[in-house]
């Protein structure tokens, strides 16, 4: 075994400067080896030390045996986006170590399992071997747990070398294993012995340190899918039909996890909800539309391929005016694409989903807190407007753990929309008023609906995706058709007060504006700081819904140049903006890119800078 001798840092420029709480560590492992626990322990421990952190998991589309990376970024300044370079690499996978070296900054640190042959070509890297096998052997671990325990070795060594508080690690372990003593103890033992080994055998020759910071107030760590699931539950979801698909599965699975606790009748133990795993996405959306029609707060969650199968039913829901909420946790397409990578590539598809003239409300949460918030609001909007509402997140937002402000309990009562029950219908009848399922009684484009189970003899109507008049009767009449379709447009565009408004952040003397949405917010914010440092202040408009808010129009007119930043090839949001605001099209510039990785501030900064220079 070629044992690599620790090299001294040779990079004169950076040597000596201590780097505290502002760096990125990447753990390179093999999936299926159980490294998730180790990484989570480290992430949460840093978080508990008050350090702003974010974790990004880059994993393959298989179950076991392929390279996987987990990056933890610490940023005392609070930047949470992905960075493209690593400061510290923990290498447990011999297959990828040479790639990792390419991404390491000068002065970076390499921890590596000492049974990996490392041919270190760079002198500017500090390398520490880790005697993983030896420590496991000493720990007398059962053979089937060895791979798993190996990961705890790096937890101990890294913690020791960068200075993570061991008590905090213990607390995190306890939290992680929900106090199960045996699990906590066995993991703790190996972490401790690894830390001890490091203390005794490794001399600190690098510049990276972590230090406790003041507690982060009202901040939690959570993944977007959990936030979405909880948002749905606090929104009163009654029916979910879903079909497994990465990266959406954990959204539905988390509802299954929390619903029994949060939504059963305490007296009888009976459920106020139902979750059905459908046989496919055609069925999932069919069931969800059925349930929405029958008066339930109904939803489904899926990813791109699922959306591509749901078009026909969503067109029906749009035209027959059925409320339903659809989560799209986006991954990289087209086709099966990169199922375990992130993108924002489904926007135009969804905007134009289904044949004929359709239109869909789309909500675009920017972080886990908004996943929760839009989760409950989406039901209000869907039921108020009697229409499908999409919520688009992505793999990065959905599956990675993020630091975010704690969720606020809904600040308003549920809006179940215009529903007529027995008494309501009877009252109309008694007053001699004609009710029609598709009659615009209030002039806002939104009719009143009844719900199956309403036993009033006048309540029933027949729902169909074929032409119907205001009284829900079948018709092929030209005017009924056109009026009906125009009312649908009015319904969605005339009630924009219901949709989340864009968030605007300004800098004094901004030279131009940046538009973004969804998970790319943190990278854009950081890029703006970089631009500002270069003397280019910018304003930022984060779009949170479609149809577009009227504010956007004003904003667009206020700037000469607007860069639309997004994570797809075609600049899909830019396309939609150009289409909607024809007179502003020329000043909307595409800043888009998709390779499966979350956007970095660096890329945004460089791209915009280049475009600015070109102009």
């Amino acid at each position: 075994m070629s044992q690599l001798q620790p090299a001294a840092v040779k990079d004169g420029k950076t040597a000596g400067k201590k780097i505290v709480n502002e760096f990125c560590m990447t753990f390179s492992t093999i999936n299926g080896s159980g490294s998730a626990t180790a990484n989570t322990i480290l992430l949460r421990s840093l978080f508990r030390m008050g350090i702003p952190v974010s974790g990004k998991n880059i994993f393959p589309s298989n179950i076991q045996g392929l390279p996987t990376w987990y990056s933890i970024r610490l940023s005392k300044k609070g930047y949470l986006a992905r960075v493209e370079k690593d400061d510290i690499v923990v290498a447990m996978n011999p297959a990828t170590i040479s790639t990792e070296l390419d991404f390491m900054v000068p002065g970076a640190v390499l921890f590596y399992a000492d049974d990996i042959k490392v041919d270190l070509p760079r002198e500017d890297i500090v390398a520490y071997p880790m005697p993983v096998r030896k420590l496991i052997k000493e720990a007398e671990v059962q053979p089937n747990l060895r791979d798993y325990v190996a990961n705890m070795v790096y937890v101990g060594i890294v913690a020791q070398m960068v200075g993570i508080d061991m008590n905090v690690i213990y607390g995190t372990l306890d939290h992680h294993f929900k106090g199960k003593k045996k699990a906590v103890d066995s993991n703790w033992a190996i972490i401790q012995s690894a830390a001890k080994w490091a203390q005794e055998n490794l001399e600190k020759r690098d510049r990276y340190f972590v230090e406790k910071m003041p507690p982060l107030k009202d901040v939690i760590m959570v993944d977007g899918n959990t936030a979405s699931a909880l948002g749905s539950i606090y929104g009163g979801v009654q029916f979910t039909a879903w079909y497994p698909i990465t990266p959406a599965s954990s959204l539905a699975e988390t509802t299954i996890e929390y619903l029994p606790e949060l939504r059963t009748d305490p007296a009888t133990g009976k459920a106020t909800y139902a979750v059905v795993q459908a046989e496919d996405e055609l069925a999932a959306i069919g069931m969800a539309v059925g349930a929405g029609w029958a008066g339930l707060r109904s939803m489904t969650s899926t990813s791109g391929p699922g959306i591509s199968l749901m078009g026909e039913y969503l067109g029906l829901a749009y035209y027959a005016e059925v409320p339903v909420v659809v989560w799209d946790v986006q991954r990289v397409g087209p086709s099966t694409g990169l199922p375990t990578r992130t993108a924002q590539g489904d926007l135009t598809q969804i905007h134009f989903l289904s044949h004929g003239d359709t239109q869909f409300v789309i909500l675009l949460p920017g972080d886990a807190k908004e996943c929760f918030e839009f989760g409950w609001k989406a039901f209000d909007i869907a039921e108020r407007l009697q229409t499908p509402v999409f919520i688009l997140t992505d793999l990065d937002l959905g599956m990675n753990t993020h630091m975010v402000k704690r969720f606020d309990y809904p600040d308003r009562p549920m809006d179940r929309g215009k529903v007529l029950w027995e008494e309501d219908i009877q009252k109309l009848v008694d007053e001699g008023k004609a009710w029609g399922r598709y009659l615009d009684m209030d002039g806002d484009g939104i009719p009143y609906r009844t719900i199956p189970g309403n036993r009033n003899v006048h309540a029933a109507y027949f729902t169909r995706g074929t032409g119907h008049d205001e009284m829900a009767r079948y018709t092929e009449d030209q005017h009924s058709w056109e009026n009906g379709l125009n009312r649908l447009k009015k319904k969605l565009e005339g009630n924009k007060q219901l949709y989340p408004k864009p968030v605007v952040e300004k800098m004094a003397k901004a030279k131009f504006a940046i538009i973004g949405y969804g998970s790319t917010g943190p990278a854009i914010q950081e890029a703006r700081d970089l631009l500002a440092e270069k003397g280019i202040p910018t304003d930022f408009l984060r779009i949170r819904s479609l149809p577009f808010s009227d504010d956007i129009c004003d904003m667009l007119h206020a700037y000469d140049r607007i860069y639309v930043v997004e994570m797809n090839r075609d600049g899909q949001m830019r396309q939609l903006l150009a289409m909607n605001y024809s007179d502003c099209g020329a000043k909307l510039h595409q800043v888009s890119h998709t390779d499966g990785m979350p956007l970095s501030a660096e890329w945004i900064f460089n791209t915009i800078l280049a475009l600015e220079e070109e102009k």
Partner: protein
Amino acid sequence: MATQTAVNLAGLTRNDYKGAPSTLCQGCGHNSISSQIVAALYELNIVPENVVKFSGIGCSSKSPTYFLNRSFGFNGLHGRMAALATGAMFGDVTLKAIGVSGDGDTASIGMGGFKHMVRRNVPMVYIVENNGVYGLTKGQFSATAEKGLELKRQGRNVFGPVDICMEALASSATFVARSFAGDPKQVKEILKAAFSHNGIAVIDIISPCVTFHNKEDSFHSYTWGKAHESPLHDISYVAPRDEIYIEDYEEGTTQEVTLHDGATLVLKKLEKEYDPCNIYDAYRVIEEAERNHWLLTGIFYIETEAPTLFDSHNLVETPLNRLKPEELRPAAETLDKLMANFAQ
């Protein structure tokens, strides 16, 4: 003096069960099935407001407009009735559901959804108005078209027909029957039994398409059906409150099955020894009939005790769609607790 209109035990007239005038072809088998649905529900004293109707797309799937005006209904998408109905029924599980589909709708495009709905034992009367052809799109082969059938513009069908009853059985259906639109009495009795069944009741009804597929010598025609229908048994439905009284009662020649709601199904055996509670018998006769090109009708199989989809969901008593906001949104304290757990 005005004539008194007859009413049933629910105090309703037959008219209260009617739908809009049919726009199907005169003589279409589907129309005669609609009439029997009206008759069965009237005779069962089921209030229309307690029924909910579903369908896919096709001539057959238009039928729900032509009965029970006073019931909610949803004419969904081609081949996708199963999922729609499954989701919708969670709204209020006290409603009785009836679905009308076609052979194209169920056995061609809808095969997957149909099978999975059956497997879930969703409590619903699921009628396939089976004419072996696509009516509404003007006469193409459906998956139940008989092998060798020739149709204008389409040529010859080279595939064996999908057997709806066999499919239902393979998916563990709990009520499987076949009937013939030309035998309205049997259709009605089977419908009544189906409405008393707690679980999926699949009824494959041969229902001739007089416009595109009614050749005398074809399996799905009136003429052929009338000449060849061979019932497994005579079916009488006896309501829970009525006393069973069957004419010509003879030791060993009838079988009684108690249905979920206490009604009794009395089957007077014809020709064959047949036990509809025995699944092997069911496989055997269905396979036999298919192979021999028999129009064998009757209730092939019934299993009264299987749990339904809803049984496994342990839902609150109140229909879900009548729950109040406070029953749906967990209290603020619960969120505080969760947030504490997610916090540092």
